[in-house]
Each structure stands twice: as structure tokens, then as C-alpha cells.
């Protein structure tokens, strides 16, 4: 089995593509069976289109999927925030399903829900897993101003009504390709019910919450979901996830919240102030620092304690303009009852440890890893900064120094583990294939 991955960074996407074709894709003898292409998210849409056309034309590839991400990493290299990466393989051991695309996925879920499980369930093999990339968070420039409405008295008092209004608004914005990644939670639950037992995926993303794109062969889309499935009788697909839960600090109770994940009150008090207090962060310092940013927020990691004793991570985003807090709580976890949550402190070392833990769990039943695909939260990237390469070193340490892998820094990460859906943020999900 031939596997290869690599990064090329340059301000010109044309040069990036030429580099990827020559240095990564052409290293595979013959037409690759699968090609994952990821570009960083600041190039023009027309440039991505040209890039995909060039790749498909030059390589003859039929199974290309990909998307745009703020950063992309591969083994043995410092990730890039300006360029692209390719991950590709060829071999009889793995069968790759023809990639599928579902446009307007935020609002048109039906086709996906009925068709995708059918394709998945028709695959007969000892081991199989789906791999999908879906559109991630994209907000309007004045999104924070609009969210102020959710801090109003009626929004707190009449939550049910606002949930209905909220889902209507979500649908309306979703049609325009706007919204968070929470729609994926619903999709995962449907897939799991319909016997999709294993899946891994991530959300294409722009760090400024602007345009993000998905690719299938030479087509470029926004607001879509693209995916494929891998199956094999000889290769096993192990997958897992982890997050940095090394330092738990304080508990709190989410008392007032909306289905969209907007937290109005914590411990019965306005969420923004309350959370800052829990974090011991003086509000004047916080306001001074974040006021000048339209999007940048104080992003913090929390976890909901689950029945099995494990935590489900989510992220909260304070913004000086809001009294409440935006969160990535999965809609399926939002119940009428108060939600007990705990605050975690992320650290560079904790991020490295959790990356190793993810790889370690994914290779549990694999002796000889062949490749890996990791979906890593862009927030973890921001915390690690220029030490991000260390995280990939941890993955390489567990997989083996010469095992090719790709890391996509995404808007949210998700998996289905033996029919258990897991929609998370601030985490790392990983797929490892091997014998």
C-alpha cells in the first residue's frame, strides 16, 4: 500500500498546488485511490476552483475530497497557515467509496439522512468507516449585536418560544450558509439511529468565521457536506477522540440556556459576568482586551459530566457585547434541567498529552499503523501557537515516525463510535488505519 502526505506553503495557491502535485501526489505510482486536499482559508474561491481543476486534470483522481481550514499539519513538519496539504493513498487493501456531496446541508438534511446510511450499510467488509467534512461556523459581521436579543428579558422568560423562533432563524440563516456547527449534532444522531456505526469528520473553517469551502473532485462548494467511506477486509480502522482534561478547576450550573447553545444564565446570574468570576478574570481587563475585536472572544473549555463518568467537552465564548455566553453545547445535550458543567484549564502540555491519548486509543487494536487522519480543534491550535508542531510529534511518536498522517484544524470535530455519536469542540478526533 502506498501512502503519502505533505505540506506546501506559499502565498500563491498555484505554487502550492504545483508543489503538492509534484512532491506528494506524484510520489504515488499510478492514480491514487484517495486524495484528501486541504487548503488554508484565506485564498480566493476562484483560486481554489482552479487548484482543484489542475489537480484532477494532472492526476486523474476520481476520489478527491477536501476543504479549507485555518491550519493544516502533517507528520514531521511545522503546520502551515498559508498553503495546503495533501494526503493520499493507493492499494488494493482499502476500498474507497465514490465521494458524495450534500448541498445546503444546514437546511436540506433529508437526502443525507436517507441516502448516506444506505450507502454505508451496503458496504460489506470486516472493517469500515465513513469520513466526512462539513461546513463549519460562519457568522455575519454583526452577529454579536444580533445575539444581544437573546439577553432580553422575554428571551429568558419564554425559552420555549425563543427556541422555536431560534430554530426558525437558524433555518433562515442556514439557507444563506450562516450558522454554527451545531446542526452536525442532529445529523450524527440520525446516522447512528440508522446503523452508521463508525464515522469521523470535521468542519471546514475560517478562523474569522467567514467563508469556508468543501471540495469533491474538481467541484467547490460552501454550506455543504462531503464524504466517503473506507472499507477493508485486511486493514482495521481504529478511531478515537480526546481532549485536554488535565486541569479541572470549578463547577458551575447552566441554569438558563437556549437550544442553540446560547447560555443566558449560570448559577442563576447573567452568564458572562458569572463565568468571568468563576474564571477569576477581572471584567475590566477582559473588556479592554477584547473590545477591539469583532469576533475574538475569551474562549474557555468546559465539560459536562456524563453518566459513564467521562466528560463531554464544549467551549464557551464570552464577548464584552453580550450578557450571556455563546457555547458549543450540542443541542442533544441541552435539556430543560440545569446542566452541571466543570471548567477546565487548557495548556500546551495538556494538548500534547491529549493528542497522544487520542492516537494511543485509536491504534489500540492495530499493530502496524499505515496512516492517520486527525481532526483537531482550531482553538487548541490557538492555545499551542508555534508549539503546535509538538502536538504532531506526539502523534508521530505513537503512530511511528514514518507513518504518514494529516491533521486538519477544524471548526468542530465529530465521530460516531460504535453507533454512539460524539459532536465536540476543543478536542482531537483521530482515525488510524493499519493491520
Amino acid at each position, binding site marked *: 500500500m502506498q501512502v503519502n502526505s505533505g505540506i506546501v*506553503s*506559499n*502565498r500563491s495557491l498555484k505554487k502550492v498546488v504545483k508543489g503538492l502535485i509534484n512532491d506528494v501526489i506524484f510520489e504515488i505510482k499510478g492514480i491514487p485511490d484517495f486524495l484528501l486536499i486541504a487548503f488554508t482559508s*484565506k485564498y480566493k474561491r476562484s483560486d481554489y476552483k482552479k487548484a482543484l481543476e489542475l489537480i484532477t486534470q494532472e492526476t486523474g483522481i476520481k476520489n478527491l475530497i477536501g476543504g479549507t481550514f*485555518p*491550519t493544516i499539519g502533517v507528520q514531521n513538519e*511545522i*503546520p*502551515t*497557515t*498559508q498553503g495546503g496539504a495533501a494526503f493520499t493513498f493507493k492499494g488494493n487493501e482499502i476500498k474507497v467509496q465514490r465521494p458524495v456531496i450534500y448541498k445546503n446541508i444546514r437546511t436540506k438534511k433529508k437526502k443525507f439522512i436517507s441516502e448516506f446510511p444506505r450507502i454505508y450499510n451496503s458496504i460489506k467488509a470486516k472493517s469500515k468507516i465513513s469520513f466526512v467534512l462539513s461546513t463549519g461556523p460562519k457568522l455575519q459581521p454583526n452577529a454579536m449585536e444580533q445575539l444581544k436579543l437573546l439577553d432580553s428579558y422575554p428571551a429568558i422568560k419564554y425559552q420555549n418560544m425563543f427556541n422555536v423562533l431560534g430554530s426558525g432563524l437558524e433555518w433562515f440563516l442556514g439557507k444563506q450558509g450562516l450558522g454554527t456547527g451545531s446542526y452536525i449534532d442532529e445529523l450524527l444522531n440520525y446516522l447512528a439511529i440508522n446503523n452508521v456505526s463508525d464515522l469521523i469528520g470535521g468542519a471546514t473553517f475560517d*478562523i474569522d468565521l467567514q467563508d469556508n469551502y468543501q471540495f469533491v473532485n474538481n467541484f467547490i462548494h460552501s454550506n455543504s457536506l462531503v464524504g466517503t467511506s473506507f472499507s477493508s477486509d485486511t486493514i482495521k480502522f481504529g478511531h478515537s477522540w480526546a481532549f485536554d482534561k488535565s486541569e479541572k478547576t470549578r463547577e458551575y450550573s447552566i441554569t438558563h440556556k437556549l437550544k442553540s447553545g446560547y447560555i443566558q444564565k449560570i448559577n442563576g446570574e447573567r452568564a458572562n459576568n458569572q463565568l468571568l468570576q468563576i474564571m477569576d478574570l477581572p471584567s475590566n481587563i477582559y473588556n479592554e482586551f477584547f473590545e*477591539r*475585536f469583532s469576533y*475574538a472572544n475569551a474562549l474557555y473549555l468546559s465539560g459536562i459530566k456524563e453518566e459513564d463518568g467521562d466528560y463531554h467537552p464544549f467551549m464557551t465564548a464570552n464577548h464584552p457585547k453580550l450578557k450571556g455566553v455563546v457555547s458549543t453545547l450540542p443541542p442533544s445535550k441541552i435539556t430543560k434541567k440545569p446542566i452541571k458543567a466543570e471548567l477546565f484549564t487548557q495548556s500546551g502540555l495538556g494538548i500534547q498529552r491529549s493528542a497522544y491519548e487520542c492516537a494511543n486509543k485509536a491504534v489500540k487494536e492495530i499493530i502496524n499503523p499505515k496512516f492517520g487522519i486527525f481532526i483537531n480543534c482550531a482553538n487548541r*491550535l*490557538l*492555545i*499551542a*501557537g*508555534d508549539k*503546535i*508542531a509538538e502536538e504532531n510529534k506526539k502523534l508521530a511518536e505513537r503512530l511511528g515516525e514514518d507513518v504518514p498522517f494529516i491533521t486538519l484544524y477544524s471548526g468542530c470535530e465529530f465521530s460516531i463510535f460504535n453507533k454512539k455519536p460524539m459532536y465536540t469542540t476543543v478536542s482531537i478526533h483521530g482515525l488510524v488505519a493499519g493491520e
Partner: protein
Amino acid sequence: MSSINRIKSELEDLLELEDVEAVVLFRIDGSVIESSFDNNYTSRKIRVLQWCKDNIPRVSQEMRGNNLQKVTYELSDTCILFFAIGKIGILTTLANNTANLSLLAVETKRKASIIENYM
């Protein structure tokens, strides 16, 4: 392409990143090896660049003395990232104060490691 032109090209890549206003590769004595600027010359930028040039010998001494790979200065309206390149170079990236320093640091580090091969 000669290594000088390769260095220039890497600096121009960095300059294309959002919020980056200037990129200068200094030698530790403060000599400019190569530089790249956006087109908007302002007195502020010139002042900051002069400040960088004057302080490079001191910054590089600190970096070498304490084995620092990266030093960040956040002035009132400008962020400056200094990345050590081997024993002899300091890659300096000037960005405005809304720049995402984490992402900028990732790419600057990447470029620093590439440029080291040409020095």
C-alpha cells in the same frame, strides 16, 4: 533561484498574511539581510522598524543567552515577533495589534525553519 531570492520569497509569503505590515530578516548585529514591506508607509511603521533595528543586538543577545526561540513585543499599536534563526539571524514580523498572534507565530516559525536552510 538563489538562496537570497528564496529568502525574499519566504518573507513575501509572510507579508501576505492578514495584519502583517513588515517582515525583516536581521543579522544579530542589526544588519538587514532582507526585508519586505506592504505599500502603506507610515511614520509609525518607520519608527517601529527603527526601534527594531536599534534593539536587535540586545534582543538577540537575550535570545542567545537564554536560549529563547521566540520573543514577542506588544507595543501599543503594533505586535512584533522575533524568531531566532540559527546562530546568526532574527526573523522579525511586524503586525498590527489585531493580529492573531498564535496563528502568526505558527507561520513565522515555519518560515524561520525554512529560511535557516538558506543561511
